[in-house]
């Protein structure tokens, strides 16, 4: 187990490096650069652009420095070197701020969860908590009432939830709540009010809720058919004890293991929802950065998201090892 873990963790390094390389290459392929247009200022003239490029090292070769000296003195390797030390570079558009500050630094006097990333994290967590607290009981009930109307409705709803993409759901809700009923502002500006979070969180979490419902139901059905459940019945245990001690404990293993990746998916996948609702999270920051060619912001967000996904996938394997001793990880 330990050697497996060490190998997995070491393998994360080249994976992240390649993600960085692909993003870096693509980003520099995109026409234009960070100084091209800045609505808040006047157009940047060419001598200023040169000075800015020099200041931020954008005049260096992209990958390999062939002009003598250190071949690794290039934009890419300088970035990677700094990123390893936790320095994601200065944002090119939000002057004077470092990328890690934009993402993780809260406004003055606020706590870490008021940072851009904190906002996305909280939205993802809220969505996951709602999905789990509604999805798990619904899945259990559907399995216990198998082949009844209740079961069929739960299944039907979960198929819809899994299929209908969240941004389509968002459009329906925005038109209904903002266009028709005037309950919601189309572009929300004040996110200090918890009620404002509900709509984006519901939209974001609906697919996960549907998935958890289906997974719980199927997992329960599988456990219910096992011999040890028959044994428990045969020795005269009551229904409640069987359900809680024997069924749930085993049926919830797959559900628990997907929690990590589900949260990672909700955080990294929320940028379209964030953009639609004007939610001030790190996902919306990414979309803005792409339009602005804010190279360091694009790299920083992509790498943090990739790290999140890799770690989430790693936790699945570890959790399986802990929750289900029958599985031996090699």
């Amino acid at each position: 187990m330990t050697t497996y873990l060490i190998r997995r963790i070491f393998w994360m390094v080249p994976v992240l490096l390649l993600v960085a390389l692909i993003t870096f290459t693509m980003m520099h392929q995109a026409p234009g650069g960070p100084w091209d247009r800045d609505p808040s200022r006047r157009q940047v003239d060419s001598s200023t652009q040169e000075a800015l490029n020099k200041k931020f090292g954008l005049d260096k070769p992209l990958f390999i420095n062939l002009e003598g000296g250190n071949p690794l003195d290039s934009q890419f390797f300088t970035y990677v070197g700094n990123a390893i030390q936790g320095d994601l570079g200065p944002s090119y558009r939000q002057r004077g701020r470092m990328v890690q500050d934009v993402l993780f630094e809260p406004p003055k006097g606020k706590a870490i969860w008021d940072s851009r990333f904190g906002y996305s994290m909280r939205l993802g967590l809220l969505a996951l908590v709602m999905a789990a607290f509604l999805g798990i009981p619904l899945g259990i009930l559907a399995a216990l009432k198998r082949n009844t109307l209740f079961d069929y409705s739960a299944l039907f709803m979960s198929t819809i939830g899994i299929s209908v993409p969240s941004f389509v759901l968002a459009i329906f809700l925005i038109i209904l709540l903002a266009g028709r009923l005037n309950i919601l502002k189309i572009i929300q500006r004040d996110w200090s009010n918890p009620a404002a979070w509900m709509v984006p969180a519901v939209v974001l979490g609906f697919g996960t809720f549907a998935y958890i419902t289906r997974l719980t139901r199927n997992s329960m059905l599988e456990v219910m058919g096992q011999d040890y459940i028959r044994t428990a019945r045969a020795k005269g245990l009551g229904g409640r004890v069987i359900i809680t001690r024997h069924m749930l404990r085993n049926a919830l293993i797959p559900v628990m293991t997907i929690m990590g990746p589900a949260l990672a998916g909700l955080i990294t996948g929320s940028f379209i929802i964030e953009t639609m609702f004007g939610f001030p999270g790190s996902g919306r920051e990414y979309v803005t950065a792409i339009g602005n060619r804010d190279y360091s912001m694009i790299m920083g967000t992509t790498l943090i998201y990739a790290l999140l996904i890799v770690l989430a996938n790693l936790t699945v394997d570890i959790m399986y090892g802990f929750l289900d001793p029958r599985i031996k990880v090699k």
Partner: protein
Amino acid sequence: MTTSAQTKSQQVQPKPGEPAVATPDVADALSRPARSLWRDAWSRLLHNKAAVAGAIVILFFMFVAIFAPVLAPHNPLELNSGKGFLPPMWVERSSTGKAGVPEFILGTDNLGRDVLSRVIYGARVSMVVGFIPTIIIVFIGVSMGLVAGYWGGATDNLLMRLTDIVYAFPDLLFFIIVMTALRATALGQFLNGLFLLFVALALVNWVGVARLVRGQVLTLKERDFVLASQAVGASHFRIMVRHILPNSLSVIIVAMAFLIPGAIITEAILGYLGLGLRPSTDPADIFITSWGSMLLEGQTAINNQPWILLAPAISVALVVLSFNFLGDGLRDALDPRLRE
């Protein structure tokens, strides 16, 4: 649902106590015309109401896509000045004080273009984006999966490492950056930008199929029928294509049914971000607008004319839901053991 498979094996079962050898005429009397596994699956699929409904909706949208020029009541590019933001025909007074007219069933957009005609033309993009990349993905994925699973070694290692990288990359982030980066190149302008989208979708999704097929091959190649073909001297190529591939076909078909809606959703999201199809003003183009692009255009008209948003949103939801129903149905039909 396993009954049809059981009756098949029970066809010539003797009564208890009798010898298991049937005389020819008894066997004839007991046997039905042979039914292939595919035919069994087909009849199971036809009994699944949700899957049939899904298939009908998909066929309907394919029909709409192909015959868009005939079906669209207006030219989707025709600007009707003074008739912008008309509400749908059943609305008597919209928030802008206009009344719907039967001429424009779902109303018009800001430039006075007919929303219904644009949705009809948008179906073309979604259908093409659903099917073409999926065919490419399956072709590459299946070949790589077969080779990796059958030969193992370096190909297999490479495949698994590639999968690790693709799985680590947040896929929408990848699509966004690729579409932004290569949009201005010749590749990005081919087919109004659709070709680039095909390539991006294929790059991300083929590994999933390859891994799936690889898993299938790993179990299938240990089976006796493979050993038997090896014994009679079949070539590796023949074993792969004639014996292993047909046995993994059901898994591949089901995977396809779920790849298609994924691609349609991706196009809609990218279109909404302004990174999908380049909206065209040339009437000679086959692909004029997409549902994703309509969502982007309609964004500012939530109060004035919500149908610019609603019509493509409902269409996306309907198509994606239908493919999911069909996919579920196919999975149950092709492998009853997997039935949930």
